[in-house]
């Protein structure tokens, strides 16, 4: 048993009151030879799961606890002794958080009396109960609430002059109250250098700078974790205070491994168990899905149901089935994604749309015998209100406190770390901004060294605060900054989630979040159902609605998978607006890939991802596909597995099957190998798994050379990993969106515009693409526009009022309602009856939405500024003609972009074309010879600098004819970094490169293309890595 255990440690999950991660605290505790550590973060157990996980890894015991902010303002550290105590703590925190504003939770003394059982309390540090008036009374109260044996008077020594006075006072109080002393260092960080960050956090917490923070900063660096020897030296005169820590440790029975979590059971009808009801529902569903239950299907279903029942997951499947059923009943598109699509049960229940038997998918990727953790079923839903309806339904079903969103821990990254550390160091705001701007948009792998970036931002090398800035930046990087909510992960619990983890209100009304993120929940065996919003699902849903209303209904399930027009569109890379295969990289691959069947779409979806690119899988696959190299399946036995991907293992299922074939692995052993291969797992674990594989192959007398190739192939696979079932699910959506673009173009474009923001391209690019496909787009008009973009006929769509930026939803609604009552007489009538706000009037006029009322944009802008007089003569006097000239084409363009971020008129580059006769059209590049020196000019719609590209950058420029792609070598990117990232229009001169149907300009020079008229014209470029 240790001589001393730290029982009052805080991590960065105390948000600005701690400066080390829980993992770092535990690691340091292990280094210092401790066997236990209690993490008591402020008002929550945010870091407890991570501390628990790390402690388990290092052979330590993490003790749960937290600091409670009381209603009187004092702070009480409590330590959990029993499971009941943990449940009490969670409930107490949930109550306190849910009835207060975010971050303002206060525990009442009355609540403490109810929930004190199973908790031990310390008197705390400078914020503690002894700093209040009448400390003896406070101690008496604690004794009454917790019981004398569970109250300890906490003492600290931080090597600050005169601190012994406080220690003596505490000793006197303890003696008077007959309470034991307990020694603690109340650490705020793991190592002494953490003090710097803690000081910076203190300044941030007080909204001041380090210079101004004065006495609020720490006097020294002693609030770190200390070893038993260091604490013994500090408390040599009070050994009983050290011994008390062991008394507490001995009294602790609880650990997070005993959470007592139970997934909710489905309320089955009488006479049914969870297993029997799942079997019944599956059989009913299978008959609908398969029509005929073949022996193969029956065998697969029986196998899956047996395993699900054995692992006790039947209730889980039923709950998810019920959510899916509810969504479908309410007209909400829903589709399971991820490895759930490997399950015939999921397919039969209607959770997924991929037939795993037909597609030969491996069930073991989803669920296997040796697996103890919950299977992962993610549901894709249309983003926006439809998804929110499903989320609210889940809350309703499991109310109260049975369901909550998982948290999303927002951490300090480059920009935020620099911004906040720069602020506390009182650096000039423009330096901080320039630093951020040098990130080159998006958080793609960053090639600029930190000190160089700081220098370029304008802070000289010799600046006296530079060393502190660099240190603080590194210390803060990766630490939690605040808690958000996960985009769709919900956790469910049968016996009250608030006894498992504290719940908090989210910023979004009606949402509640748990204090752990999805990985923490998974590590502790808490099941999560992901209800993910997909913009494309919403777009497809809207397309189907409009198509049906126009008498051209579409049944997604019945779409022909061999439509030549669809494949033709894909082969031409004409995929702007469709799902997944619309990105620059996908479009560059499509002409080489030339998809000819649905499975090609599956491969296309899977292959253009960082993993296969880094694993150098793309070129072998494309070369083999184009007959440039022979197909090689490594081993004869692998042919059935790898033949469909031409010998290149692209999917996780393939690796699993390879291991099962060549090494006789069971499904669970193969799954374990796959998990070890996942890139974020340890090298040690991977080596161990590969050793096991090699040993098994050797036993089977596989040729060592073949063994070597298999291991190499699996090792390179470790860099990516994508389930085939997931790729098929996504390919279904991708194909459906292509089909709609081809056969329901006008409805599809209208839906895309209505669902923005989504996808890869802005509304402006979608409009340009629609026009190229022969669609006529009509501008927003208060006389005819609906709220959403609407279809006029097969080739015409009208922009909706929702495209106007700066006009409220209420005004849209009022326009529609008033118009339905009586059509507008004139502009004055419109203004009088709708009463739009001044800014809204200007937006409507500027966008040309009032033109149908007898005005041009300028005259409308003139007219709307005149006051309206509701007298008897109003309406009789005709307004004088406006003295303003009509807008020029450039002015209309500028107005369109500022009011709707798009134009239905000419593209900005079309207006500029006469000024730039030597620049090539994007479309014309395909006709020019390879190697020709060309100049392209256009609006930047995409800047990409993927981590796989060694710092090179891809830029897409749009002009009136299409999109031109440029490849910018890393050295040129570094030279012109700010031009590339800051300018909305670029002029790129370089060498044309054409190969396998793709065209790129290898950039040699890049300059800003500027002219006055484009000053306010730009689109939000899609920038990421």
């Amino acid at each position, binding site marked *: 048993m240790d001589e001393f255990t730290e029982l009052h440690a805080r991590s960065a999950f105390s948000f600005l009151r701690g400066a080390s991660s829980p993992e770092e605290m535990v690691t340091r505790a292990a280094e210092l030879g401790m066997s236990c550590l209690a993490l008591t973060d402020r008002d929550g157990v945010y870091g407890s799961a991570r501390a628990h996980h790390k402690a388990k890894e290092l052979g330590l015991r993490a003790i749960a606890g937290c600091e409670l902010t009381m209603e009187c303002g004092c702070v009480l550290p409590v330590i959990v002794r029993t499971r009941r105590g943990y449940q009490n703590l969670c409930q107490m925190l949930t109550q306190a958080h849910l009835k207060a504003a975010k971050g303002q939770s206060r525990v009442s003394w009355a609540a403490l009396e109810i929930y004190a059982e199973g908790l031990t309390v310390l008197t705390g540090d400078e914020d503690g109960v002894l700093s209040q008036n009448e400390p003896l009374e406070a101690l008496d109260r604690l004794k009454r609430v917790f019981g004398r044996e569970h109250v300890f008077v906490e003492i600290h020594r931080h*090597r600050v002059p005169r601190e012994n006075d406080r220690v003596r006072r505490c000793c006197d109080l303890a003696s008077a109250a007959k309470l034991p002393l307990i020694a603690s260092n109340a650490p705020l960080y793991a190592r002494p250098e953490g003090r710097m960050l803690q000081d910076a956090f203190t300044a941030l917490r007080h909204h001041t700078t380090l210079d101004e923070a004065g006495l609020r900063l720490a006097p020294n660096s002693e609030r770190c974790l200390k070893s038993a020897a260091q604490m013994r030296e500090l408390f040599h005169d009070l050994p009983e205070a050290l011994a008390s820590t062991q008394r507490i440790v001995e009294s602790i029975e609880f650990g997070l491994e005993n959470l007592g979590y139970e997934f909710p059971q489905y309320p089955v009808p009488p006479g049914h168990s969870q297993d029997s009801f799942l079997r019944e529902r599956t059989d009913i569903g299978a008959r609908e899905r398969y029509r005929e239950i073949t022996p193969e299907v029956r065998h697969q279903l029986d196998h899956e149901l047996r395993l699900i029942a054995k692992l006790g997951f039947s209730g889980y499947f039923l709950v998810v089935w019920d959510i899916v059923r509810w969504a479908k009943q309410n007209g909400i598109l829903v589709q399971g994604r991820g490895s759930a699509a490997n399950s015939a049960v999921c397919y039969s229940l209607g959770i997924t749309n991929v037939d795993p038997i037909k597609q030969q998918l491996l069930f073991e990727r989803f669920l296997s015998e040796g697996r103890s953790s919950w299977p992962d079923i993610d549901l894709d839903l249309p983003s926006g209100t439809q998804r929110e309806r499903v989320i609210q339904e889940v809350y309703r079903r499991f109310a109260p406190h049975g369901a909550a969103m998982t948290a999303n821990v927002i951490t300090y990254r480059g920009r935020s770390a620099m911004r906040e550390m720069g602020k506390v160091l009182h650096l*000039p705001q423009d330096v901080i901004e320039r630093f951020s701007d040098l990130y080159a948009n998006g958080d793609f792998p960053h090639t600029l060294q930190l000190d160089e970036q700081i220098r370029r931002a304008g802070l000289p090398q010799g600046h006296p605060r530079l060393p502190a800035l660099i240190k603080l930046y590194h210390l803060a990087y990766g630490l939690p900054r605040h808690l958000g909510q996960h985009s769709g992960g919900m956790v469910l619990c049968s016996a009250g989630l608030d006894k498992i983890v504290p719940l908090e209100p989210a910023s979004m009304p009606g949402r509640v979040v748990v204090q752990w993120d999805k990985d923490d929940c998974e590590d502790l065996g808490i099941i999560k159902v992901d209800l993910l919003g997909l913009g494309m699902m919403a777009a497809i849903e809207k397309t189907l609605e409009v198509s049906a209303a126009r008498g051209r209904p579409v049944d997604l399930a019945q779409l022909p998978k061999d439509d030549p027009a669809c494949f033709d569109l894909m082969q031409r890379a004409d995929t702007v607006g469709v799902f997944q295969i619309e990105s620059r990289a996908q479009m560059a691959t499509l002409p080489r890939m030339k998809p000819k069947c649905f499975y090609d779409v599956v491969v296309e979806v899977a292959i253009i991802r960082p993993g296969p690119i880094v694993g150098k899988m793309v070129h072998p696959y494309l070369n083999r596909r184009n007959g440039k190299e022979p197909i090689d399946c490594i081993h004869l036995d692998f042919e059935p597995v790898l033949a469909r991907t031409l010998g290149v293992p692209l999917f996780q299922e393939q690796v699993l099957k390879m291991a099962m074939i060549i090494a006789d692995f069971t499904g669970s052993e193969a799954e374990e190998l796959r998990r070890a291969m996942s890139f974020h797992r340890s090298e040690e674990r991977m080596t161990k798994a590969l050793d096991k594989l090699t040993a098994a192959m050797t036993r089977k007398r596989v040729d060592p050379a073949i063994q070597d190739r298999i291991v190499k192939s699996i090792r390179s696979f470790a860099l990516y990993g994508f389930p085939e079932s997931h790729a098929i699910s996504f390919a279904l959506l991708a194909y459906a969106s292509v089909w709609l673009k081809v056969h329901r173009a006008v409805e599809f474009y209208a839906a895309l515009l209505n669902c923005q923001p989504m996808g890869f391209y802005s509304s402006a690019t979608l409009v340009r693409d629609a026009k190229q496909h022969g669609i006529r787009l009509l501008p927003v008009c208060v006389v005819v526009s609906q709220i959403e973009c609407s279809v006029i006929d097969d080739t015409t769509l009208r922009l909706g009022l929702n495209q106007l930026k700066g006009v409220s939803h209420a005004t849209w609604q009022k326009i529609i309602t008033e118009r339905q009552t009586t059509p507008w007489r004139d502009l004055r009538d419109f203004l009088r009856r709708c009463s739009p706000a001044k800014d809204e009037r200007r937006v409507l006029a500027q966008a040309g939405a009032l033109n149908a009322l007898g005005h041009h944009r300028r005259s409308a802008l003139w007219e709307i500024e*005149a006051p309206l007089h509701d007298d008897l003569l109003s309406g009789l006097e005709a307004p004088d003609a406006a003295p303003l000239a009509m807008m020029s084409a450039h002015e209309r363009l500028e107005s369109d972009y500022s009011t709707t971020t798009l134009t239905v008129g000419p593209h900005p580059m079309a207006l500029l074309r006469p000024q730039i006769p030597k620049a090539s059209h994007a479309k014309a590049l395909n006709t020019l010879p390879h190697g020709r020196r060309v100049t392209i000019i256009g609006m930047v719609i995409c800047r990409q600098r993927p981590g796989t590209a060694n710092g090179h950058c891809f830029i897409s420029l749009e002009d009136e004819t299409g999109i031109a792609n440029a490849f910018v070598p890393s050295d040129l990117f570094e030279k012109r970094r700010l031009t590339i990232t800051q300018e909305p229009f670029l002029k790129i001169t370089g060498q044309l490169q054409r190969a396998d149907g793709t065209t790129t300009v290898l950039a040699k020079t890049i300059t800003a293309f500027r002219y006055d008229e484009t000053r306010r014209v730009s689109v939000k470029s899609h920038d990421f890595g």
Partner: protein
Amino acid sequence: MFAAWWLPRFVLQALRVLSRERAAVLEAQALKAEDARLLCVSETAEREGVQAGMTSSQAQARCPRLRLLYRDEKAEQELQQRLLMAAESWTPDYEATQPGLCVLDLSRRRMNEPWQDLGMLMHRDATALATEVRIGLADKADLAVLAAHVADPVRVIRDGKEALRELPMTVLCRNPELLNLLHLWGVRTLGQFTALPRAEIARRLGAEGLALHDLARGGKERLLRLVRPIQLFREESELESPIECVEPLMHLLRGMLGRLCARLAEAWRVAGRLLLALRFDDRSTHERDLRIAEPTRDEAVLGRVLETALEGVKASAPIVFVSLEIVPVRAAASQAGLFDQGLRDPNRFAETLSALEALLGKGRVGRAELLPSRRVDAFRVVNFLEAPAPSLDHTPGGPPLQRFRPPRPARLVWQDWRPVALHVDRETKPLISASGPWFLSGEWWDTQQAWQHEIWDAATDDGALYRLVREHEAWRVEGRYG
């Protein structure tokens, strides 16, 4: 007739930036990210596409060699002051219209030369102030301002206002919302604006629009908001016979005081400070800024203050010039309460302080005020007469420490990580007990200010308890307790 003197890019000119430089100015202390936008851009930078309102990154994308400067309000005030002083040399009737722009009323001046020549003369005068000055002359003040905006470098507008038609509206209007509306209307120039019907402007833009309309047409006759020199309570005397001792100097000063106090009385003011300047035959000077503890215009009191201040003054040459200025303040409006505790005679107290300061040196007399720092001895000396800052609650308890100033360098002998002997003042004292170490550190974020102390309290065998402090690897005895 009016003349307008305009310094284009005033913010940049105040920073003495040459027009050919690629430079831009940012707000010195932007509070929010959106504040960090360019305020003013040099002509060369503008030619490369940099515009006011851009972020510094956008500007550097256009112009990589752009020099970014911070606004210097003090320099702007100085330049403005110089501009006004130069204007004053032409006429006493002038208006400080806005920073970098003043209008001179020349109607009281007899004009013999043509206006253009006069403008050239003015320009020659004004170019000593800044690199770029433009002069506009017209018979109305606002028209002169507009003329200055089209001047190169001098422009006279008598009747034809055609030249003004192309001037941008930004010259006249500073209201961003109105400018935005005019932009939406396509109205960019004065000509376009004046073409709009006046009545319709009134309906839409109200009084502000009408005023703007008038201005765009050259403005109406209006009175300038004249800059009137602040009345100075100052007396100067160049001495024919240099003074060599205090007595005749005091005689002279008392005379000055008498006249100044009489003027103070006329203005219902009292003396808040006395500014005394002496110049000696060897061109050296002596200046004093004497604060009057209890503002008064009592000549005797003020005389005593001067006399005390001059007591310690030594000079190597006789005095050839004397200047005395009184900074006037309003007399206290209320009388101290019956039970208010205060100094019986604050001016006498101030005299004493002044005498002490003369003896000890400037900044060495006053009250020590603790600074909010973890450094134990962080303090500053503040004038006794300043209101004390709220006390800081970090005064350590325990026995009082009698500090050694300066601290005494020391060497310690160590055994088992504890000091056992103290070597100080060439004497070695055995230590019978020592408590510590205590650690204090701060300002770690600035390499020029960072500090770190290790502190021990050690008792010697003679019963004395010392505070020992280590800083920069050197030990010192900081004081003795008790």
